């Protein structure tokens, strides 16, 4: 064991003894002693080999120490963030309640101010959902569909908030169009997500969304009397041109890649 202790000590020769280093060394000695016992139990009886094997498993002890310190810091930061989030959430709800009650008492429009507190709660829900989306995106791609569903739900919640504000506070008649916008936004956001998360079939989503997006545009523009319902519907089948264009662009990019690849291969061949 003396060898192992020497090895650990040697790694920190140039460092001033600190409590964190002392603790790290203490834990490491215990860990490596266990490891040595485990190897002896396996039947390894050559002490030099045990030492070399353990050293090969810990080639850079100083880096391990730094890594542990980084992990500790990250852990601390994580717990700080969690505390800040809890405090922030409490403050947010207190502020929302104070503002809601203040506005309601001042205006006495209780039949409309409820939209504010409902909106505040929904915004908080979307915040939680965004956190989940971030966490899921970092995980394996099998979790990506779930984060895409959450993203769509988020947009739907925002649409609901806007719808409530427009209907209850401003009494806008065509507020239902917000939901049509929302569907459009869902498809756009999903397309961007697929691209950013490097989803393998992103191109198929882009293509599949073009015609429904055109339909949504058609409804919005017609409902706002920007274009007539008839023959405005033509923009739906016309969107197939965009589909074709996207496919053509994709194919040409693919062909260019292939040409480049062939040129690369040729040059390699000539060099050889």
């Amino acid at each position, binding site marked *: 064991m003396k060898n192992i202790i020497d090895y650990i000590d040697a790694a920190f020769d140039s460092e001033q003894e600190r409590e964190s280093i002392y603790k790290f060394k203490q834990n490491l000695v215990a860990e490596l002693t266990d490891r040595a016992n485990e190897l002896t139990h396996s039947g390894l009886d050559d002490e030099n080999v045990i030492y070399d094997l353990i050293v090969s498993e810990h080639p850079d002890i100083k880096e391990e120490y730094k890594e542990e310190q980084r992990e500790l810091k990250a852990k601390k930061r994580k717990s700080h963030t969690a505390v800040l989030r809890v405090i922030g959430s409490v403050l947010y709800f207190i502020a929302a309640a104070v503002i809601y009650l203040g506005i309601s008492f001042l205006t006495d429009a209780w039949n409309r101010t409820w939209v504010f507190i409902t909106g505040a709660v929904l915004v908080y829900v979307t915040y939680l959902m965004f956190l989940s989306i971030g966490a899921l995106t970092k995980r394996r791609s099998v979790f990506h569909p779930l984060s895409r569903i959450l993203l769509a739900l988020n947009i739907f919640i925002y649409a609901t908030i806007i719808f409530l504000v427009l209907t209850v506070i401003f009494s806008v008649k065509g507020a239902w169009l917000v939901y049509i916008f929302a569907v459009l936004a869902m498809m756009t956001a999903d397309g961007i997500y697929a691209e950013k998360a490097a989803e393998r079939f992103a191109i198929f989503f882009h293509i599949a969304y073009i015609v429904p997006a055109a339909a949504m545009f058609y409804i919005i523009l017609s409902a706002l009397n920007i274009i007539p319902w008839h023959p405005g519907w033509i923009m739906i089948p016309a969107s197939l041109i965009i589909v074709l264009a996207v496919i053509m662009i994709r194919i040409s990019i693919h062909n260019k890649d292939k040409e480049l690849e062939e040129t*690369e291969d040729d040059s390699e061949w000539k060099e050889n």
Partner: protein
Amino acid sequence: MERKLNAELWDKMHYLFRDFNDRMVHVELEYDYDINIRALKTVLICFFEKCPVFHSSFTDNHVRPYWTVNRYNIDEVLTVKDIDEKDKREEVDAFLTQCLPTDGELQMKACVFRYNGKSTLCIIENHMCMDGGDFKYFLKALCKNYNDYIANGTSPLDLRQGSRSYKTIYKDLSANDKKAAESLYRNINKKDDHRFPLSESSKEDSSFIARKVIPAEKFVKIRTEGKKYGATINDMLMAAYFYSLYELAGFDRSESVSISCAVDLRRHVKDTENMGVTNHTAWMQCKIPELGRDIFETLQYSIRSANQFKQDKYLGLYGLPLLSLGYKIMPHAASEEIIKIGYSNPYIAMSNIGILEVDKLALEGHEPVGGFMSGAVKYKPYVLLSATSMRNELTLSMCVRGNDEDKKTVSKFFDLMEKNIDVLIGDGQ
């Protein structure tokens, strides 16, 4: 704390093959000297520590399977038996034909049989851990580390470590090739219902390893005569395999038959240094349109078929992304069922494991005087012909779970192989 390892794609695939074979890879190396058991144990322990999958048990979790690393004692891994030389064949076969359960504590076992100052080293390992290619590397590393340890006291730690993922075969491809290879979803192997003429399976069947040694003078001729026809050793063996199969099974001459040949996917990798020991093997389905008028025409068909594959720069990479996707998007239990439907395991296959280099397998300067390596024991009606060469001697082997009738059939097949090889090299009629 329990240590777990990720079950890689090929681990899961070879686990799926449990319906077709016993998953064991076998090797036998004969030495004219007494192996230093203490040194061998030391090397084996170090290798087991470097590659913990060898002392892990596979958990068939319905959602995501994994390996659990176990504690072990080297005496459970390596057995030493003093035997009579006359019993050697029987003892070796009894050791080699055992099957290590996937949920057992160990995935590799070794045995040294000692007799009259000689030793035979036998090792079996679970194919889920590594294929023949890496097993050969493992053996060479074992011998090198053993020699260095005895000669200089160097700790035997020189074994490759790294990722066991199937994706490492893409690492040296150009960006465009990698992109293209990762999109090869289609499976190019077609189902062929032709079967090796073995008897029906029964409860009484037991595992056996049939071997046929083709002497050095013939093996050298296979190489030299093959060159005249533009054929590799693999092509020559394949032609003899096809011809013998038609004769043995009585297939109609006009029928098209295919034999799947194992392809080492490491051909796509320039530097294997940072790759862990694992499986990187796929099948190339060699097909002849009919039995040639003679074996030489059959050889031309074999060459043509093999060349078609060899010209493809993505040889062996087809279907991998689909398998990976299948395992990724579904829980393991469901993906296994789906893959079983889409995957057709070849009934007739060949694995040319290649040369067992005696200089690299020497222990303390004692080169092995004989030996072979073979694939798993196949369950009927599946068969795999393994071919290895040592000191220019070619060993053909077939591991089958069958009965005496099957033993006779395989023996007859080997006789036909030898006869047809003789014709190919100009020694026959």
